[in-house]
């Protein structure tokens, strides 16, 4: 084949261009450690990468929900534990009041102590988590329990029976809140009853109100068990979501991250090639023609 200087020049330019292009691609990979930089780099892998990213984001959202739910359940637990303590203490006092050894003066004293426990219990029933009343159903912005003065005092529940359900994974829902009306109204009412009976030295009523208080305490304990079961279940769920997130991240990394050791060695190799091309280009471009050699 007849070869002209222009052909050699054009080839030299093309080879340098091609090699530089490859070098740039590898450089880009090393600079941010990713294989895919634009849609067309690898459309099929891109689809997987996008799906994985989106699944990760969904997992992140579920994890946030789960952590938030854990906080709420913990608040339930704290409130219930405190309520059980308070109620147990009140029950002890009530039993002391029933005992024949107590006279009306002692009962008065016990009554006022129970009055103190009543306001503690009221405070517990109005517990908040993150600014929301946890025993108010959906009406989380309304203080759910109030004691309306009268003869006798009555307990008013201003919340509703809304059940707050959170979805923790596709298909896994969990009830978060506890029906305050069902759990705390009996406690508060019984406390009022016991207090009033002690104050008025009415042992017959005291007997029945103490029984109500005992029942209310049992209900509290049951609720606490339910809540504890939810907490354990939630812990499992959180653990599973976290494990899934880790697995997804490593899958994503497999797809979109460049193998740095491999990429760098390819880069070195390409650099050598490029240098060689430059060298051969230099020689080609400097090759004299016959005109220059003729004196």
């Amino acid at each position, binding site marked *: *084949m*007849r*070869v*002209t*200087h*222009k*052909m050699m020049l*054009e080839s030299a330019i*093309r080879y340098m261009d091609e090699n530089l292009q490859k070098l740039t691609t590898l450089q880009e990979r090393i600079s941010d450690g990713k294989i895919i930089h*634009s*849609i*067309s*780099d*690898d*459309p*099929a892998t*891109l*689809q997987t990468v*996008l*799906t994985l*990213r*989106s699944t990760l*984001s*969904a997992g*992140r*959202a*579920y994890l*946030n*929900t789960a952590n*938030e*739910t854990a906080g709420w359940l913990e608040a339930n637990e704290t409130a219930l534990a405190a309520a059980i303590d308070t109620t147990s203490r009140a029950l002890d006092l009530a039993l002391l009041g029933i005992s024949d050894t107590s006279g009306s003066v002692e009962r008065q004293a016990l009554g006022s102590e129970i009055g103190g426990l009543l306001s503690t219990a009221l405070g517990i029933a109005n517990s908040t988590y*993150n*600014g*929301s009343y946890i025993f*108010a*159903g*959906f*009406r*989380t*912005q309304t203080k759910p329990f109030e004691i309306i003065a009268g003869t006798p005092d009555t307990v008013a529940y201003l919340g*509703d029976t*809304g059940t*707050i*359900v*959170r*979805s923790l994974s*596709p298909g896994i829902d969990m009830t978060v*809140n506890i029906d305050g009306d069902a759990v705390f109204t009996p406690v508060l009412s019984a406390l009022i009853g016991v207090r009033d009976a002690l104050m008025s030295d009415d042992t017959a009523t005291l007997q029945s109100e103490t029984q109500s208080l005992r029942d209310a305490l049992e209900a509290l304990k049951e609720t606490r068990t339910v809540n504890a079961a939810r907490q354990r279940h939630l812990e499992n769920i959180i653990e599973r979501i976290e494990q899934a997130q880790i697995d997804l991240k490593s899958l994503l990394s497999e797809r979109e991250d460049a193998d740095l050791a491999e990429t760098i060695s390819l880069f070195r190799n390409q650099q050598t090639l490029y240098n060689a091309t430059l060298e051969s280009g230099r020689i080609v471009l400097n090759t004299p*023609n*016959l*005109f220059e050699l*003729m004196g």
Partner: protein
Amino acid sequence: MPSLFSGIHMALQSLLAHQQAMQVIEHNVANANTPGYSRQEAILKPGSPYPATSFIRAGLPGQIGTGVLVDRVQRFHNEFVDERLRDENALFSRWSVQEQLLRHIEIALNETQTDGLLAKLDLFWEGWRSLSTDPSNHALRLDLLERSKSLAMALQNRAQQLRTIRAEQDLEISQRVAEINRLADLVARLNAEIANVISVGDQPNDLMDQRDLALSRLAALAGADSHIQSNGDVMVSIGGHALVTGTSTFELQALPDPSNNNLIGITWSDGQSYAGVNGELAGLLAVRDGILVDRLNALDDFASALASRVNEIHRNGFGLNDATGLDFFTGSDALTLRVNDVLDSTENIAAAGSPMSPGDGSVAEAIADVRTERLMTAGTATLDQFYSGELVTLGLEIQKAERLANDRQLVLDSLGMQKESLAGVSLDEEAAKMIQSQRAFQAASRLMTTLDEMLDRIINRMGRVGI
């Protein structure tokens, strides 16, 4: 008998012929880097011989030569290679323009981790899910509002950029149409000049180079087919419609097309529609009226499905202030999609399924669950899947254009090498031929000097014995 005087004439002819050959070499060297130039060579031939004149041909040899002449100046050129080059150039130009244009679309739609539409969509769903866990939290509501606005903005930006890219092609197309018309006039004029030169028996080498260059550009622009006629004229057609025949041309027009959003359309001046399948124009049109329109429609489908489904759920929900029946998004396509202005007062955002239930996040949760609803492509794909599928389609289109452009480039390069190998100027070769001509020129002048001396001997010295 030949005379000494005829020898001087022969030497003169030789001087002139090699001088002319030298001129051709100079022309080659000067044009070594001129695009489209085909090297030329002066072809020498011996002058017409004549029989020796004698009464009885007493032993004199037969025909006597009369020196050298330049027969013609030959142009090195292979019409077959040129034709293949034009075809490949048309294909290469089509796909490389298509690739470049698709790269613009790719940049507009690029899906990076921070600025991707899907990343924004994910944040939007996450925002709803967070709100569902703490529906009365104003900070979460504000956050959701911002995420939603940024999603709407991302859709709007993408739709806007695609529309801009589409509209910008008008200039590209009309410039190319103008260039085609200009080149058609040039080819017609060259046809006339070349016919003139050929008719007097000369070779219009440089004019033919010029015409070939114009034909090659026409092929790149519009995939024009060119055929050399027996009389030296070239006939050019695009998609079956004649562009140049002999010295007459048919004009292309670039006018706004009312049936296509008043974007520039191409028609022939006789009203027929333009049907070029290759060349840069075909690439531009395929992207502008095919791929780009598909992508825009997909964006609109995506936006309207998102808006209508989210609105449907949101309308049934209740805000913190018990506002209900409100749309979350306004607008129905990607360009017009906005977050409802009413929701700037974030208590209007409906997270609850019933009034007076600030702790109820069931509607927010239902919206967060839209993420996994198969709303697109006849209930087979979620919004995420639909959009990532769109990106993959675009990616594959780009890869296809890139691959075809690269393939054509390789063929084009090797054909270009073939053409250059035949028609390119080699400086070494020209230097060698220059020396060849120079030596022949020197020999001819030496010959003339010798003949002069011989004549001098006869005229001035003969018969002067004793003078």
